[in-house]
């Protein structure tokens, strides 16, 4: 199966889905699902294939090409599988919504564009796909109307800033080396000066930093995640944002090369060290801001930023172990954050769009599958052993400890601590505690929404117990960057500096659980009571008078809120307002009086003449 076919299938499928929707919505749903499943099949059939093809020379005679290598395959399979699950989920979630044809079209177009990004073998097709992804994302973020509109504008403006930086970078590479093919750029890079390499690293880092929401370029993300339709939030957080990680890998380890990008600058003030520190800041501050959120999706969104920090730290540290951790965390994060967004989406679906943590609660009996997803999702997010997040976080901690970076290690641990606090709030306020009266008779979660949640929950456990499965292909990627390979077994990683063997942990935990189970068996039986059978200070609580979930962590709020403001967002808002103000005033040059305009004309003439008389330019 060739790459051209894959790309044509991806883009063509998106268009055809739209057309199918004009005939019947059933046909469209099935067609969209078949398309995305077919893409999964095609991509998995390309495992371990390495190939390069030239698509066409139509763009100013530049050879636009596609290439498949371990890095591209790894991201491609993640994109297509998450897309397939999300499409399946959308079949129920998006039913009875407006413009569903358009929704599916954009969703599939975004996935096709992401696929084209990771497969592109040259920078121009990379940029073209990147931009298609950006504008179609904008169109889908705006889908929910109202609050989604400013979120969309925020996203697209920041994204445009990023792409303009990238465009300058790409064209400067083209003028410097006279090629846009990535494999050729790699060879030319040896002749470039260190200053030029640093320029490239910085200018591309802005682009990818915006996409991956690295502090201080993160401000588009919370609103965009929160206001998108939930299945799309899942795509956005799971894969689309992580195109930034792909970009960082591309610029740091493929184009500029590890030996250059890891030795840029001196001591603390080296490129990768500063990037790692930005990553650390990205972990700590957003994770604590997440704790303050009362909107379930915003809470997840802030974690999306924070988890991105772990990936950046791992990658920027630039050892085999760190890279493996960073990349693996990208995959793991995709799995559990998609799962979490889908679980929240299920609640939204059942409660007619409710996602306020203060007014929900006690849903676990009503929505057991969504609860399962939420529970395993937050376990992954925290990094509890036997879930996938544990392995990648372990790799990152290990890297930082081995690399003698105690402060960075502390930052990552602090982030995990904050994560535990805030996701407990998430879980508790949605599923545990008292069920508010109005949610007694909520809609059931449809099967099409349950299946993706179950699959993702299982994946979390499978990758947590058998991390060797994905680590094998990550290892291949690391080797292609020129790093020493890790010794990966199906159960984990073994090395002289520390061995991770999940099967041992698994068996120990099994034993511990068995012991506890036996103890509890011996103890007195607990009695099951109704969910409303609650007491506080010995007195029965009247129904609907008290909700445990309101103002969770209130003391912490009072303490932390002044320190946890998003100063960058405020700064950018200020800049935006200033720009608006400036624009409004610039417009006043055109006064509307023709006499002023004639003065402009005369002044222009006078300026030309005096310029000549003074400097004799002609």
């Amino acid at each position, binding site marked *: 199966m060739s790459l051209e076919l894959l790309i044509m299938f991806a883009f063509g499928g998106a268009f055809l889905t739209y057309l199918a929707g004009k005939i019947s919505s059933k046909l469209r749903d099935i067609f969209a699902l078949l398309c995305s499943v077919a893409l999964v099949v095609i991509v998995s059939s390309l495992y371990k294939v390495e190939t390069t093809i030239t698509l066409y020379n139509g763009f100013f005679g530049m050879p636009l090409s596609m290439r498949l290598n371990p890095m591209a395959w790894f991201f491609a399979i993640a994109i297509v599988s998450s897309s397939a699950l999300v499409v399946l989920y959308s079949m129920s979630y998006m039913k009875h919504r407006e413009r569903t044809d358009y929704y599916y079209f954009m969703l599939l177009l975004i996935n096709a564009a992401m696929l084209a990004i990771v497969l592109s073998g040259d920078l121009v097709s990379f940029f073209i796909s990147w931009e298609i992804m950006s504008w179609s994302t904008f169109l889908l973020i705006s889908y929910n109307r109202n609050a989604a509109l400013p979120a969309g504008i925020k996203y697209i403006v920041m994204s445009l800033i990023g792409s303009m930086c990238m465009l300058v970078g790409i064209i400067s590479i083209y003028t410097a080396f006279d090629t846009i093919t990535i494999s050729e750029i790699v060879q030319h890079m040896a002749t470039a000066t260190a200053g030029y390499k640093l320029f490239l690293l910085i200018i591309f880092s802005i682009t990818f930093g915006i996409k991956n929401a690295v502090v201080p370029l993160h401000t588009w993300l919370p609103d965009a995640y929160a206001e998108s339709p939930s299945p799309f939030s899942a795509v956005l957080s799971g894969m689309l944002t992580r195109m930034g990680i792909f970009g960082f890998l591309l610029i740091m380890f493929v184009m500029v090369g590890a030996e250059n990008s890891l030795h840029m600058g001196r001591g603390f003030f080296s490129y990768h060290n500063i990037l790692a520190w930005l990553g650390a800041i990205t972990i700590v501050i957003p994770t604590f801001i997440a704790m303050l959120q009362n909107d379930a999706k915003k809470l997840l969104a802030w974690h999306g930023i924070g988890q991105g920090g772990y990936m950046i730290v791992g990658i920027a540290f630039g050892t085999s172990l760190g890279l493996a951790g960073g990349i693996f965390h990208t995959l793991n994060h995709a799995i559990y954050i998609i799962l979490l967004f889908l679980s929240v989406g299920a609640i939204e679906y059942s409660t007619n769009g409710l996602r306020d943590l203060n007014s929900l609660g006690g849903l676990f009996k009503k929505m057991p599958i969504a609860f399962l997803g939420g529970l395993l999702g937050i376990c992954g997010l925290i990094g509890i052993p036997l879930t996938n997040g544990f392995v990648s976080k372990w790799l990152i901690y290990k890297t930082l400890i081995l690399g003698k970076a105690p402060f960075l290690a502390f930052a990552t641990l602090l982030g995990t601590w904050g994560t535990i606090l805030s996701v407990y709030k998430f879980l508790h306020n949605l599923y545990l505690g008292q069920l508010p009266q109005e949610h007694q008779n909520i809609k059931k979660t449809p099967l099409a929404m349950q299946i993706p949640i179950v699959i993702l929950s299982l994946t979390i456990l499978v990758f947590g117990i058998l991390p060797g499965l994905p680590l094998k292909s990550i290892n291949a990627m690391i080797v292609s960057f020129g790093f020493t390979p890790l010794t990966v077994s199906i159960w984990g990683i073994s090395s002289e500096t520390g061995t991770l063997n999940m099967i041992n942990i698994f068996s120990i935990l099994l034993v511990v659980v068995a012991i506890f189970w036996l103890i509890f068996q011996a103890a007195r039986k607990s009695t099951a009571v109704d969910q409303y059978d609650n007491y506080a200070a010995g007195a029965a609580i009247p129904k609907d008078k008290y909700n445990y979930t309101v103002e969770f962590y209130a003391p912490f709020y009072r303490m932390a809120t002044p320190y946890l403001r998003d100063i960058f967002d405020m700064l950018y808002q200020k800049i935006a307002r200033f720009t608006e103000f400036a624009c409004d005033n610039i417009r006043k040059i055109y006064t509307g009086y023709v006499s002023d305009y004639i003065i402009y004309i005369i002044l222009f003439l006078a300026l030309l003449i005096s310029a*000549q008389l003074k400097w004799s330019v002609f």
Partner: protein
Amino acid sequence: MNEMSILDPVLLIAIPLGLAFLIPLLGLVSKKIVRWIPVVGFLFNGIVALLILPHVLKQPIIVKIGGFVPPFGINLYAGSVGMLLASLIAITGFLVSIYAVKYITKGAEQKYHILFLLLLTGATGVVLTGDIFNLFVFFEILCISSYALVAYLGTRSGLEASIKYLIQGSIGSSFLLIGIGLLYGQFGTLNMADLARQIVDYTEPSVFVSMVFMITGLGIEAAIFPLNAWLPDAHSSAPSSVSAVLSGIAIEVGLYAVIRVLFTIFAVSNFFIFFMVLGVLTVLIGEMSAFAQKNIKRMLAYSSIGQIGLIVFAFSISTQLGVAGGLFQMVSHTLGKALLFLCAGYMIFRTGSMEISSLEGIGKKMPITALCFTIGTFSIVGLPPFTGFASKFMIIRAALANGELLLQILIGLVLVGTIIEGAYFFKIIQTIYFKGAHKTDNREEAPVTALIPMLILVSFIIVIGMFPNIIDKVLQPAASELLDQVKYIGSVLG
């Protein structure tokens, strides 16, 4: 030359001019037929221009009117630049006149079609002529018909805009005439090639006075900052079909005249930094003014100013790449802006208001028009895979090619302009599709005569955007023609 008798560039001017005068006569026969005359005329022009185009890529066609050998008599210079723009004018004219068949139904219909033909005849004349006085004459035809067309709707704002435009345009024309007069007084010739030849050897700095007058005069029509104050009023008050041509053709032709005068007649190279800065200023001021607009047509008009600034900037780089990029940007802007104005025309017609806020929900009401509009904005902002991206790519490449710091800073500012442009266009797109409550309005799509030109423009935008090689084959010779003054003189004077 015998087999090329149908391929005579003179026809490009003669046919629409003749048809314009035929309209009053044909109007006596049938009112309906009049509407189709511009369509027929520009279809013919388009075909002829596209047939001539491949012939002129290597060697320009010099038409000697009345058989007088240059520098005596008037000659047409149908080179690659001229034919590229002439084809563009004919194609745009063709599409816009199809649009106008249903769109222009009120008022002095016949006069509209006459003026429309004359406007584009003037434009074609400007890009093809090799004689500087002839250039003035065609320029006047272009300007005077556009003054009248701006006031076509007869509204108060239209008349006001037209008068303002008239005042500023007349000042421009007089400056142009002063410049031409000074040149004629000094050199005794009006032939561009002959003038160029003599100016090369002429060391007196006094020649710059005429250059300054000519640039100022032409710069008004070209909408270079600060000479562009007439544009927002005129472009927004005219009927949309006229705005499409004014934005898409008229200002670009004005800019072509400036470039031709600068590159070919005066061959100044050390003047371009000034123009570069001017171009960037035009971009920033145009885009920033557009950002604050609430009226869709004014916004599009200001955006045209921004685009013109980008084209000026590209030309001022004055390298092969830069000039080719500027020409390409002209093409993308014509296609994109014509499309936007055509779409906006029916959106305004259906909603009855030019306020952007009134466009809420138009995406449901007029899905095809809204889609075309969206694609047009994407192309103007410069997003792939549309043509605006390809041309912007070329310009950035030209700006970064020689590694000058000034150029790098200026292109940075241009890109800031692009971001502002993106912001306001994306806001409109949100208004069209997502703003307001979800309503299920009845469909009120634009008529087929409007949809056809829009869809053709969209297909151009996509095809050229994906395969810019098609147009690059014309752009490269065109750019070398503009840059190579010696060859120009040689091919005219022999």
